[in-house]
């Protein structure tokens, strides 16, 4: 009791003494910064070609693992959009020794999560588990990658679920806008379809398609295994050897898909959805490859334009004009040239105004140099996001897997911060001219067209209006025949 009272008196005294200090009218300056410690990954390649990367961290007793196959939706055959994703989703639905229910029960009994799905360039199987259960959980991961059975009833169930889920997305203005912009930017090229497919393409997928995709691409010399968290590197390597050492691929190693050519002519496409509660507005164009030497400059340019709350797009659209809950932009860097998108959701009435603002800001990046005074804080934002991104075992795993996927040095994990700091205003302008200017950009709006068509046509000459129920995502021109 006495101690508590004494403490209270001390506090009071401290408060009184400080109250006499003059009022602080400007923010107190920062003290000297503390330097971050970025963990160092170690790696080993198994005799069968599987590259294994491990990074030890000691924060909480958790481990994340990702098995990445270096092939994804870009390899979907024509008319079979969604094959890579369906194949990945089916891995956990049964192996030669375990049923789908046994896998779900076994993994969840460990408190673990085991998720699989495809992206462009990649098919991932992700595990997150408390450290003491790592080897048990990794056995499930290895089993689903190596021995899936793709039973007929599981394929039918998966397809029905995927079609239902696509039908939900087709009613969501923002999701539909993403599907559409993919087609508009890349046409019939390998990045031009929705990675989750369409109700029609999913219906077409057979067991043979899935088994063939798996046999062709899921092989140790086309894969990388990353583990991060509270695990010793030697234990992780031993576990990888035990579970994947006997894994073999058949035939020659597959080549990666052909380059993604973009259609030459920019388009303005409106999908008319009369009951849309808000319009989804996007400006999109071809961006850059992940391995492009301008990668970091492009990241910095995007941080100025549309990365983060205080970027130009959010400043102009949300903060100054109250036109949206949030506006932003981003590059999706891939093995080949991926998309760049800038967008916002806004009330239908202001869709044309928002499209104009997106375009103006993209062009301003290319025409007017960014001052150092603006560049420095945007670089700090980018660096902060990066540091927080690799704070968790899951984030660290993803970052390393992406470097390995694109054949980039793992040391980039510790060079990223200095690399960003070294980017000059001139480099930002250069990359903005080639990758942000809107000469080759498309405009995509999904919303209630009658509320914005007139002002939109006042700014853009050829506006292509397609009623939502007439959209065909399977066709390069988006129209149902």
């Amino acid at each position: 009791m006495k101690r508590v009272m004494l403490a209270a008196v001390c506090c009071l005294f401290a408060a009184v003494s400080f109250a006499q200090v003059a009022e602080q009218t400007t923010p107190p300056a920062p003290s000297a910064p503390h330097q971050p410690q970025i963990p160092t990954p170690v790696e080993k390649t198994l005799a069968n070609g599987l590259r294994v990367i491990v990074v030890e961290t000691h924060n909480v007793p958790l481990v994340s693992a990702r098995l990445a196959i270096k092939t994804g939706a870009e390899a979907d055959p024509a008319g079979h959009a969604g094959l890579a994703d369906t194949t990945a989703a089916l891995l956990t639905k049964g192996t030669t020794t375990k049923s789908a229910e046994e896998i779900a029960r076994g993994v969840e009994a460990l408190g673990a999560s085991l998720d699989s799905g495809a992206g462009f360039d990649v098919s991932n199987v992700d595990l997150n588990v408390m450290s003491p259960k790592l080897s048990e959980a990794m056995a499930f991961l290895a089993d689903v990658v190596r021995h899936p059975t793709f039973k007929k009833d599981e394929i039918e169930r998966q397809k029905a679920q995927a079609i239902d889920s696509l039908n939900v997305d087709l009613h969501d203005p923002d999701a539909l806008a993403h599907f559409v912009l993919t087609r508009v930017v890349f046409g019939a090229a390998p990045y031009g379809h929705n990675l989750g497919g369409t109700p029609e393409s999913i219906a077409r997928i057979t067991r043979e398609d899935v088994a063939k995709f798996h046999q062709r691409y899921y092989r140790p010399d086309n894969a990388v295994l990353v583990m991060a968290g509270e695990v010793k590197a030697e234990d992780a390597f031993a576990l990888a050897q035990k579970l994947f050492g006997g894994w073999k691929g058949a035939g020659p190693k597959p080549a990666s898909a052909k380059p993604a050519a973009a259609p030459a002519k920019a388009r303005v496409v409106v999908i008319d959805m009369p009951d849309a509660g808000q319009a989804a507005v996007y400006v999109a164009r071809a961006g850059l490859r992940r391995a492009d030497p301008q990668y970091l400059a492009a990241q910095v340019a995007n941080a100025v334009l549309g990365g983060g709350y205080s970027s130009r797009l959010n400043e102009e659209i949300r903060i100054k004009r109250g036109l949206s809950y949030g506006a932003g932009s981003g590059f999706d860097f891939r093995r080949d040239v991926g998309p760049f998108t800038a967008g916002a959701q806004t009330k239908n009435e202001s869709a044309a105004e928002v499209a104009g603002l997106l375009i103006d800001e993209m062009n301003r990046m290319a025409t007017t140099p960014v001052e150092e005074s603006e560049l420095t804080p945007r670089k700090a934002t980018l660096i902060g996001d990066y540091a927080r991104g690799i704070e968790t075992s899951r984030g660290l795993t993803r970052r390393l897997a992406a470097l390995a996927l694109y054949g980039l040095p793992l040391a980039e994990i510790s060079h990223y911060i200095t690399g960003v700091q070294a980017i000059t205003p001139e480099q930002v302008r250069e990359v903005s001219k080639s990758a942000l200017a809107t000469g080759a950009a498309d405009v995509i709006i999904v919303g209630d067209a009658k509320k914005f068509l007139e002002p939109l046509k006042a700014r853009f000459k050829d506006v292509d209006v397609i009623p939502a129920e007439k959209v065909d995502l399977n066709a390069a021109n988006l129209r149902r025949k």
Partner: protein
Amino acid sequence: MRMRSVLILLLLATCRLSAELAIPPIDYKHRTLPNGLEVYSVEDHSTPAVAIQVWYRVGSKNDPEGRSGFAHLFEHIMFKSTKHMKSEMMDRLTEDVGGENNANTADDFTHYYEVVPSNYLETLLWAEGERMGSLTVDDATFKSEREVVKEEFRFRVLAPPYGRFAYAVNKDSFDVHPYRRPGIGSIEDLDASTLADVQAFHTTFYRPDNAVLIVAGDFDPQQLNAWVDKYLGVIANPGTAIPRVTAKEPPRAQAKRFDEHAANVPLPAVCITWLAPAASSADSDALTVAAAILGRGESSRMYRTMVYRDKISQDVEAEADLREDLGLFEVDTTMATGHNVDEGSKAMLREIEALEKTPPSADEMEKAKNQLITSALRQRETNEGKADALGEAIVLEHDAAAVNSDLTRLQAVTAADVQRVMKQYIAGSKRYTITYTAEGGAK
């Protein structure tokens, strides 16, 4: 983006212990300043960053009459000008130096948070003191930000196909308690709010004796105490009492059904709710385990039977959504093509009854606990996650120590406890069923 968790606070998945795993407890220090501000700190030097959070004990349930959505609108205004800070200066002090900031408004609290490089700790304590002490917003700024919040309403409620459904669940589930009012508000109520409301709300609720400061990460404890005293210890409280919600939700008299419709509903959905105890209840862990057994993961009972075996559902969820005053136990499902909401509610009730009648197996109990412990571990990987866990324990359970003791309690939940709470709260009370289908019949 300024955001808010309008709908459901993450169930108290704060912190759970495993028998074979020694999770280090969150080692926090606590003191109360003479002006009533409660200060909690958790030291951790593993990254050169620090999380700063201020939790105000005011949330959507405190929205003034005719001003639904006001607590949330106010949260947005807190990023505008103060006596010595221009609008958006909070972003200059966080984002511009490699940090981040945001806030969210829940039913019971409003929560402001920053993560910054640790050498900016003093700067941010000053800034939090600034906005606790004064708010000097002009009418133009207020109106522009109100437009942003209206866009947020459209973004969350009107645009997504199931936005109106989530909006309806709270409204229909509570008869009396202000938890029934939508935290995001309505366009009309937002339009009715004024700058005068903003000043009154700040004076009434934004004061040291209604706030909790949490600092987690890389700091020197002595320095922290001195800065807290200097920038937050000097703020005075108004002489007025803090108004509290006193409404009591009566027990439900009979089961009810609410049929909600919207133009754009691709697949029908249905939710069933029961009244549940407050977050501080001794039964909270048993209810959380019950929800996990019913709906967490693909081996959960509802997923296994409804999605996997019978293929009538596209998706299932079960949740013990426990809040400060009372909670809801909810199960919901989105139907698969060709199946209707009656099939969905029948199947969910079948699983609910099975859990009331027969205790769960030892395997199911262990699985649910491991799932909950692992998600607590994931939250504790970051300073921000640790501060979040602590803040929820303080504000919702009125007990900081619960951040650690909840884990021990979770370990002790037995199959008989699960069966008992199912009988007491679910079998022993009335259900409200909320259906969501397309206007003019199923599409």
